């Protein structure tokens, strides 16, 4: 599918999605509530068939966290980028999509570990790299005067 067709399909599935053109891939900003539903449709719909999640990133912005999902289809070879934003920075929560792409479970653990975004319905929401009790280092306001030598 071309980007235009993808846009139409996604707009049909989720009316409140915002699109951003002109970037490298088609970028879609999805409301957090619709994320799981939209992902499932995109995965199982034969026309879109996004079966390969190749990157899952958490980004820290001043007022919210954004989680970026890069989706690829091994059948049609088209790419879409979904972005979901958390409602607040204090209690950042999103829905897990690990039941759709199992690889997402470990990526979500990484996002939780480094940014502190929690995922609903995740079976195993533990820290991944760091031990319990650390802060969330990839947040912009993370400070650690003991361990970090600033330059």
């Amino acid at each position, binding site marked *: 599918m071309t980007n235009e067709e993808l846009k139409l399909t996604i707009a049909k599935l989720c009316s409140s999605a915002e699109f951003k053109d002109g970037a490298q891939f088609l970028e879609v900003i999805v409301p957090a509530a619709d994320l799981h539903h939209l992902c499932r449709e995109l995965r199982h719909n034969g026309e879109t068939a996004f079966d390969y999640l190749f990157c899952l990133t958490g980004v820290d912005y001043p007022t919210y966290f954004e989680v970026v999902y890069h989706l690829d289809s091994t059948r049609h070879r088209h790419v879409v980028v979904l972005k979901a934003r958390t409602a607040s920075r204090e209690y950042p929560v999103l829905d897990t999509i690990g039941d759709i792409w199992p690889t997402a479970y470990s990526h979500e653990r990484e996002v939780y570990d480094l940014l502190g975004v929690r995922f609903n319905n995740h079976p195993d929401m533990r820290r991944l790299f*760091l*031990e319990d009790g650390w802060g969330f280092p990839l947040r912009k306001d993370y400070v*650690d005067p003991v361990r970090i030598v600033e330059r």
Partner: protein
Amino acid sequence: MGIRKKRLSEIESNDSPIISTHEGGSIVLANLDAMFGWARRNSLWPLTFGTRCCAIEFMAVGASRHDFSRFGNEVARPSVRQADLIIISGTINYKMAPVLKRLYDQMPEPKYVMALGACATSGGPFYYNSYAVVKGADHVIPVDVYIPGCPPRPEAYFYGLMQLQKKITKDRYYTEKKLLKSEKLK
């Protein structure tokens, strides 16, 4: 190795063992410290403790071109209880540090530690702005020899190893401290 002929009166406390040949066979003459030092420095068994890129260079040192068995450094042991040299080849972070400490504690005496590479020496490329890396393995366990480089070349490894061997030669276990002092006074 330094086994050479010498007269009995010439033996000093930290000399290499000497072989004197007599009728009916030869005799090895040495004081205990020298004997132990000689044996220890020529059979350093390293622990295979590799965490990052330097571990690959350590593997290369063990392979056929560089071949560390020339130095008696040959048998890399996976278990710390059979080894007497930890070669810290790679980054140590705060999660790994307790493990390294525990490995060191489990090691039988006499034990030696070599910090291979910039990471183990000082944190290396991860010195600034990293929240997870310990800035040098010597914050965790005492280190005998530091080898710079990122990764150090095999030649650098050998130089470090020879420095360690020199250090072991000078170690004393049986000479009493009092005696040492009086020797110094003389």
